[in-house]
């Protein structure tokens, strides 16, 4: 204890220095652009962000409190077990040991300029919060619920000093292999804040429980005292609701505003000349025919079809008709439904008619010469059709809508694609699609957009229709059935997943936090109907969400805080369910503990969302500067507040050592890069994906994983289901690691590239690829050991995610080689710095 006190005394002069003088990089325009401050709610569009006024509103008393907290933190450890019966008590000394053992590794000082190989050989797992063992055992899976800082700061000023964003990244509807489902007549919730009972509540005695979010004491209802699993009475803390952080309830009728809706699917298809040229209609109809029995739903499932070019075509599929009947409405200014029913029909009863229609649909428009597209009117008609019940609308569009309401102009200037300065037109041009999306959201209709175009389509405006109605956007640039078979394959795979994946209807989600924390910004595809209530007409397993939080009141007497995300939805079988995830994290009051608990991938994901918001509301260059400043500020804060010995070089804690690398990857991402020619739609789509995808896939998109696959061995391989899966090392993304004699696999989440070097050893070529007869997209199923290993490894990567990524095998002369090489982020390009130069730039800014 003595030397700890001495350490504190040595630390105080540093902390005093920090409180007064955090470096503020100033650009020529005179706006202060410090990293985290830019994104904090204190910044109002045009006002200057001055550190003194907005970060330290209370000066002397606040500083005194922080110094006292620092003192207290060295005397009492922050990682103490919570009180109350139930969780076993650890003595403070044991807790001290666990804190000591975790801190050194996470806080190990790394000089980024000297250590070249920072990437660990295997993919990085999420950091574990520093909680007692029994709490951590029941804590929520980090793949579902993750926080940027796994140790929450006690005060807002401490958070501001750490210069890292505080937020949560959720994937609430993820496909889970194990999900406990509880059918209970009473769902136990706190009386004041309505939190669901969770593993982190404390039981005061057998009859009363204390909410961990608002600290109110509630009574345990009589039915809850009986545990059906162990058939014991009097042990409410053994019930599954209190033993599992992720749980699903079957909701009784109080949770329904109306009887659960059936699954309703409406497909809105572009059939202009351009659309028929691309040939997507064949693929779509074939895919739907193949998967028609696998559409999630029950006996009440309904489907409907609308096609449009300059007029809208409806299809009467009434049972009893010998063939589908097409009804054309040409009054697109004032759209109306030609018949009141039988446009949306029960799938089981009218299946033959639907299949008939799908078989004939591509031929119906074979000879069309229509070049105009009245998308706005088609969407309005589709909304009218779906609004009585709600459901899902899938819109397929291949060109810029140029007729009727919602017509868009071509805003992109091809000469500005490679602009080194600001990119214009990232925000919507009209509020028509946003208004329509909000109308849809009110009627529980979600709109998914498939954009298959070669020209500019103003995805920035069109994307609004999905963004606010909880839909998803799929983009296939230059889709053509003959010229671009890669896109065709991707479209087919995506369609299969899209049609058959699990879906939830008329959903709402609420995210609650412990008293003292509040959520101030939301990221993802949904509409925030009121504070903390997210309206999700459809919820699907591929959507991720992020929120940013701030600390409104100091978390003074709390050891842990909890977060709960509750998703109330109607399953495709018409059952009303509630999926509840609860996360518990410790509260700390020293900067070193905050740094020790930083989750660098979550921070990167959240920063990407914030930067997308910033590019749209302010400008792209602002967003780029803010990302760089985020890295500068956090490392500067670490250097000044946590490091006791000042060394030369760029020092970072081990948990943040990959932070500059990820920031550089973000700066070179399609969404944010400047100086390289990027189509505006590609850029906007990349931004949409950064906000929409769950963290795991977003990280693969930002920083792909590179492996060498021509020399796979069984050394260190995994044994799963009697298959040996080789585990090659993750390589750095630099051409230095590439080798003409090798073959390399790059995993970017949705797409995998297998690059074969020019002088690749013939063994690989024959044994794995089957040269000279290899196709560009399939690994042939050869019987050799190398082929088996390669296919086992690639199959293992594919199985880890619910969608199937496409594999491209590229040689040196391939067109896709540029997309492969663009991901080599550690190298210098004409428009961007190499990794080492970026580190030098950061070091220079930090020492200013």
């Amino acid at each position, binding site marked *: 204890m003595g030397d700890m006190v001495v350490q504190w005394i040595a630390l105080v002069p540093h902390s005093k220095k920090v409180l007064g003088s955090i470096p503020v990089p100033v650009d020529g325009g005179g706006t202060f652009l410090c990293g985290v401050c830019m994104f904090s709610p204190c910044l109002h569009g045009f006002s200057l962000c001055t550190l003194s006024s907005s970060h330290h509103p209370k000066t002397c008393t606040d500083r005194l409190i922080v110094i006292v907290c620092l003192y207290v933190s060295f005397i009492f450890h922050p990682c103490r077990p919570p009180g109350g019966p139930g969780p076993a008590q650890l003595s403070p000394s044991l807790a001290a040991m666990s804190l000591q053992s975790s801190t050194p590794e996470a806080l190990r000082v790394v000089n980024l300029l000297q250590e070249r190989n920072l990437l660990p050989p295997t993919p990085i797992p999420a950091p574990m919060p520093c909680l007692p063992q029994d709490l951590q055992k029941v804590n929520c899976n980090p793949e579902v619920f993750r926080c940027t800082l796994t140790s929450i700061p006690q005060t807002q000023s401490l958070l501001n000093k750490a210069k890292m964003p505080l937020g949560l990244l959720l994937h609430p509807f993820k496909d889970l292999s194990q999900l406990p489902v509880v059918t209970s007549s009473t769902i136990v919730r706190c009386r004041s804040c309505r939190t669901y009972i969770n593993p982190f509540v404390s039981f005061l005695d057998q009859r009363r429980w204390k909410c961990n979010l608002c600290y109110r004491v509630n009574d345990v209802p009589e039915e809850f005292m009986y545990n059906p699993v162990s058939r014991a009475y009097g042990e409410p803390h053994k019930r599954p609701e209190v033993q599992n952080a992720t749980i699903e309830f079957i909701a009784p009728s109080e949770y329904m505003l109306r009887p659960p809706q059936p699954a309703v699917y409406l497909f809105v298809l572009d059939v202009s000349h351009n659309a028929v040229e691309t040939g997507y209609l064949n693929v779509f109809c074939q895919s739907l025919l193949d998967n028609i029995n696998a559409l999630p739903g029950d006996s009440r499932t309904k489907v409907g079809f609308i096609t449009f070019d300059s007029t809208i075509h409806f299809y009467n599929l009434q049972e009893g008709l010998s063939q589908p009947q097409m009804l054309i409405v040409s009054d697109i200014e004032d759209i109306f439904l030609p018949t009141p029913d039988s446009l949306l029909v029960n799938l089981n009863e009218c299946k033959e008619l639907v299949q008939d229609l799908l078989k004939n649909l591509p031929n119906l428009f074979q000879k069309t010469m229509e070049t105009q597209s009245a998308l706005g009117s088609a969407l309005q008609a589709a909304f009218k059709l779906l609004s009585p019940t709600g459901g899902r609308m899938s819109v397929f569009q291949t060109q810029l809508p140029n007729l009727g309401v919602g017509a868009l102009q071509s805003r992109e200037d091809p000469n500005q694609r490679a602009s080194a300065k600001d990119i214009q037109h990232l925000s919507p041009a009209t509020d028509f699609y946003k208004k329509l999306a909000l109308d849809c959201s009110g009627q529980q209709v979600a709109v998914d957009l498939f954009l298959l175009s070669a020209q500019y389509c103003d995805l920035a405006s069109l994307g609004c229709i999905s963004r606010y109605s909880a839909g998803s956007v799929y983009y296939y640039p230059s889709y053509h059935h003959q010229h671009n078979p890669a896109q065709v394959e991707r479209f087919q795979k995506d369609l299969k997943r899209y049609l058959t994946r699990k879906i939830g209807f008329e959903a709402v989600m609420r995210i609650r936090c412990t008293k003292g924390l509040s959520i101030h910004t939301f990221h993802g595809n949904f509409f*925030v109907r009121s504070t903390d209530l997210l309206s999700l007409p459809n919820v699907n397993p591929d959507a991720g969400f992020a929120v940013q939080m701030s600390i409104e009141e100091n978390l003074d007497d709390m050891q842990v805080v909890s977060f709960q995300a509750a998703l109330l939805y109607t399953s495709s079988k018409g059952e009303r369910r509630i999926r509840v995830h609860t996360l518990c994290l410790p509260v700390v009051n020293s900067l070193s503990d905050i740094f020790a608990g930083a989750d660098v991938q979550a921070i990167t994901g959240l920063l990407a969302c914030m930067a997308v918001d910033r590019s749209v509301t302010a400008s792209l260059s602002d967003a780029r500067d803010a990302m760089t400043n985020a890295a500068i500020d956090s490392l500067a804060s670490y250097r000044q507040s946590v490091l006791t010995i000042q060394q030369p070089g760029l020092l970072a804690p081990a948990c943040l050592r990959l932070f500059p690398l990820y920031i550089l990857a973000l700066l070179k991402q399609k969404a944010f890069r400047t100086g390289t020619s990027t189509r505006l739609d590609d850029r906007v789509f990349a931004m949409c994906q950064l906000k929409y995808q769950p963290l795991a896939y977003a990280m693969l998109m930002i920083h792909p994983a590179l492996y060498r696959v021509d020399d796979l061995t069984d050394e260190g391989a995994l044994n799963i289901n009697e298959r040996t899966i080789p585990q090659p090392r993750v390589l750095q993304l630099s051409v230095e690691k590439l080798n003409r004699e090798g073959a390399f696999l790059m995993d970017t989440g949705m797409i995998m590239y297998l690059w074969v070097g020019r002088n690749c050893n013939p063994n690989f070529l024959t044994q794995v690829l089957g040269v000279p007869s290899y196709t560009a997209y399939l690994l042939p199923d050869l019987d050799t050991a190398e082929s088996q290993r390669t296919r086992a490894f690639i199959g293992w990567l594919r199985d880890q995610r619910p969608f199937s990524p496409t594999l491209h095998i590229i040689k040196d002369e391939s067109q896709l080689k540029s997309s492969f090489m663009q991901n080599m982020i550690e190298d210098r390009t004409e428009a961007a710095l190499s990794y080492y130069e970026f580190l030098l730039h950061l070091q220079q800014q930090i020492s200013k």
Partner: protein
Amino acid sequence: MEAAVFILSLVDCCALIFLSVYFIITLSDLECDYINARACCSKLNKWVIPEMIGQCLSTMLMLVSMHWFIFLLNLPVAAWNIYRYAKVPMGNMGVFDPTEIHNRGQLKSHMKEAMIKLGYHLLCFFIYLYSMILALIND
């Protein structure tokens, strides 16, 4: 004549005070979950232009009747209203956008703005009242 100008400005200022109070009440209803974002924003967007017109009317009256000090007092608020209206991005549904109002503390900043305007209008109200009484006495 003077009195008439001030009586008109007083009435205008009363209207602006009521409008500020309406804004504050609607925004706090949204904060407390009594109405949803869309209803709140459509209510408020309806009154953005009348507020601008009222403020500009007051400014013009003062300019025309050559009361420079009060004109200069009114000018910043009128300019700010016009700036706020003009700066709305094309994709937004007006000054109050239901999709953005819960992001980045916009709700709090709108509330603060409405409170400041209320205080300002109250100050103007008393200035007009005083000037009107002065003008009436001098007549």
